[in-house]
């Protein structure tokens, strides 16, 4: 194998014209991905991007890697076949809140449950974009959309809860206006051994503009977001004077120096804790909104278990050719 080329983001851009709406959050994700891939130490031909249907799912066409634009909701299933057929590949699933959580919800939870080493990037814009503005499984109660003109009456999924509830071992959340953090998280997802799930809070400029602004807009995000860092205290706020403590069996945002609260009361983030309870609570926290790698626990992967078992069977087998099987056991002569 020749030496790894010195890739830049340009090496991962395909010759196809990008057709998302101007101002769409997807552009940031595309750029962050093209920036992240050269940092992963892998060859370009080993990347495979698999998608379903929706705005997000056009993504593979814009990447100069192997790509498979699948059918609605089925990307995790297609990607599972790719990964089992060749576990050495770095396989990515690009999906959205409709594709991944409505029509493809079943494949999503089972991929996560098996802990197959896929990197699943879910673009959550809380709306159906490509079909022009219906509510999605992450739309808020009361949200007015084309198919809910009087307000959405369906309770939403919190994807973090769903991922961890599906026995997920890696879950990260990142807003779409921070390409550097996003690229770092993509690198972390790729390094993680097992299913990595990244939820991108993505703005749809046409049908749900500003859906996350109250939390992620540059003017408020220092105060509204909790940037989680492994091994560091859960401190947030422009003044770095606020933090999260565990009180009355729940997480609570507090100000250091008020009501006798000191830095010692503030929790330390440990994404690697096998016990998912704290991670689960973090996915539920509304204020501040935790972003970054919430959970990252190393455990054996599906394709490793398959590969180990199959290799051992091949080693042990007395059958070297199918002929040996055909002529084995109860045969007789005529």
């Amino acid at each position: 194998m020749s030496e790894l080329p010195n890739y830049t983001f340009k090496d991962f851009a395909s010759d196809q014209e990008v057709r998302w709406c101007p101002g769409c959050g997807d552009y940031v994700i595309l750029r962050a991905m093209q920036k992240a891939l050269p940092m992963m130490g892998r060859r370009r031909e080993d990347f495979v991007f698999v998608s379903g249907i929706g705005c997000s799912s056009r993504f593979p066409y814009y990447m100069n890697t192997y790509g498979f634009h699948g059918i609605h909701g089925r990307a995790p299933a297609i990607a599972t076949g790719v990964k089992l057929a060749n576990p050495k590949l770095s396989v990515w699933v690009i999906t959205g809140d409709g594709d991944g959580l409505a029509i493809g919800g079943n494949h999503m939870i089972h991929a996560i449950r098996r802990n197959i080493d896929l990197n699943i990037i879910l673009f959550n814009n809380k709306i159906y974009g490509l079909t022009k503005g219906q509510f999605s499984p992450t739309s808020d109660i009361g949200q007015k959309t084309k198919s809910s003109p009087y307000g959405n009456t369906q309770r939403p999924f919190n994807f973090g809860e769903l991922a961890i509830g599906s026995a997920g071992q890696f879950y990260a959340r990142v807003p779409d206006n921070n390409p550097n953090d996003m690229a770092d998280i993509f690198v972390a997802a790729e390094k993680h051994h097992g299913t990595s799930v990244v939820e991108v809070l993505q703005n749809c400029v046409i049908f749900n503009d500003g859906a996350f602004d109250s939390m992620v807009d540059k003017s408020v995000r220092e105060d509204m977001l909790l940037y989680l860092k492994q091994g560091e205290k859960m401190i947030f706020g422009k003044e770095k004077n606020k933090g999260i403590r565990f009180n009355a069996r729940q997480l609570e945002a507090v100000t250091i120096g008020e009501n006798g609260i000191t830095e010692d009361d503030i929790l330390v983030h440990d994404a690697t804790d096998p016990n998912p309870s704290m991670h689960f609570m973090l996915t539920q926290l509304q204020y501040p909104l935790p972003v970054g790698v919430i959970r990252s626990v190393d455990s054996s992967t599906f394709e490793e278990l398959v590969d180990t078992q199959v290799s051992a069977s091949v080693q042990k087998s007395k059958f070297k050719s199918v002929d040996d099987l055909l002529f084995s056991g109860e045969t007789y002569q005529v």
Partner: protein
Amino acid sequence: MSNDGHMVAEHTEQAKIKLDHVVIRFAGDSGDGMQLTGSQFSDTSAMLGNDIATFPNYPAEIRAPEGSVYGVSGFQVHIGEVEISTPGDDVDVLIAMNPAALKTNFSAVPKGKTIIVDIDEFTSKNLTRAGYDQNPLDDGSLDSYVIIKAPITQLSRETIKDMGLDNTSMNRTRNMFALGMVFWMFSRPLDYTIKFLEKKFGNKPNIFEANVKVLKAGYHYAETLELLPSAFTVLPAKMTEGTYRIIMGNTATAWGFLAAAENSKKQLFLGSYPITPASDILHELSAHQHFGVVTFQAEDEIAGVCSALGAAFTGDLAITTTSGPGLALKSEAIGLAVMTELPIIIVDVQRGGPSTGLPTKTEQADLLQAMYGRNGECPVIVVAPSTPANCFDFAYEASRLAMEHMTPVILLSDGYIANGSAPWRIRSIKDMQPINPAPSPEPEAAADWMPYLRDPETLARQWALPGMAGFEHRIGGLEKEDFTGHISYDPENHEHMVKRRAEKVKRVENHIPEQQIDGAQSGDLLVVGWGGTYGSLITAVKSLHEEGRSIGLAHFNYLNPLPRNTREIFTRFKKIVICELNMGQFATLLRSEFPEFQYLQYNKVQGLPFTVLELNEHFSGLLG
């Protein structure tokens, strides 16, 4: 054990009626072990050189209430010294383990034939459960049959009463008593079954011993029973010399894929979701992961086919297995395989439909679904095996066609041949037609390479696999520009691509054999069939042809595209009758493909195979 062979030797000295073939049906509660009993009998017969055909008939309920008619499970064996192509129509010997088994199977036994019943089970409670107002053994309704009333339960229990077994274990040996009786009647040795029991109960010596004792008790009982009207003997069939084994259709299908993987040097990948009657293929391939097979039991049917498609994109020989309802669920993904021009094989082991239908019964009503059940103009190759043994050949052939032509193939098996078994003459896989999958591009071709570059003859595109440097490309369900593979909404290009995909499948006709006719090569009546009905059709056509009638059989294994000489064959006969276990789906296809012919139809939709008798009568009528 050695004196078992001796018993046969003694037995053969007695007077016997010689038969060229005989049909035996074992029927009892689904928990009575009838499938095992029947398969022991058929395997033993095959070892003696008989040709055999079997047909299990079991309820969808795993354990229906004991003694009820819907809990009856049956296993029919047809053995012969002549070539046997079907499990038989009329039952010569019925073994009914209880009243419900008698009630549900009685109509298959012609007058004068033999019925063995376990008299101990004909209690008033069981009679009521089976829906009998009075005991059929007493009311004279069975007077025209040879009825053998054997106290099977009582004698089985008596035989092993001192072994300290519990009630359930004791009762479970009853099927061995019945098997022993039938072994004696047909001069079969016991050693094969004793060996089998040893393997099955190797770690439970007590149970093993009990079963052998009861088996022998049944054998001796039959020997000494004065009521047994006659003993039968069936001599070995005249079959082509070679090494044989008994194989079930689903096993043969699985092994055909194993052979195709080895001969094409591909890893075999199966993505599947359990469904009756296809699950045995999943079980069989899972048991053979020592050949490097990866079997993935997916979360649903759609994930099964989609994972196969992902594996095909990555260069595996990729298959998915299902039955009718699952094929419906997979249809969108099969469309994606057509669009991306990737080779996958979809096995549909057909069952009675629509909807959940008759899960454990057979039917051929998925043909039009296989042909057309997708959105858009979406042609695929469709092939159908016609016997349990040639499930092997057509699984292999489906793999060859898929990978050489880069297109999905649907393999239409059915519950009848999938669960049926027959002797199979084994050939080395080295002697099979080689498989040359569409090539991957050479590294030096990278500069000018395009994903939809085609082989000028087959129109197959090249198979560039993730991991190959310089061939990074994107495929997907959106319409693609030919050659470049770029997304294209261009009207002219779309029509061009629709025609290309159709032409690619059509050209497969140059790579498959011509259609053969059995019997008369031209004349009065051409019988047309396809898939799993071959056994019944060939038996009926052969017997009429041997009587000197002008009748031939064109039995199709290649359904799309059809063999090149199909039209020419049809011109040779005055009448054409298409026989199918559906309402006339192949007839519909042929009418649209070759409208110049008049097609008669013979259809049956009862979840059951054709009987040779009904075919004979029908064909005789048409021949006039």
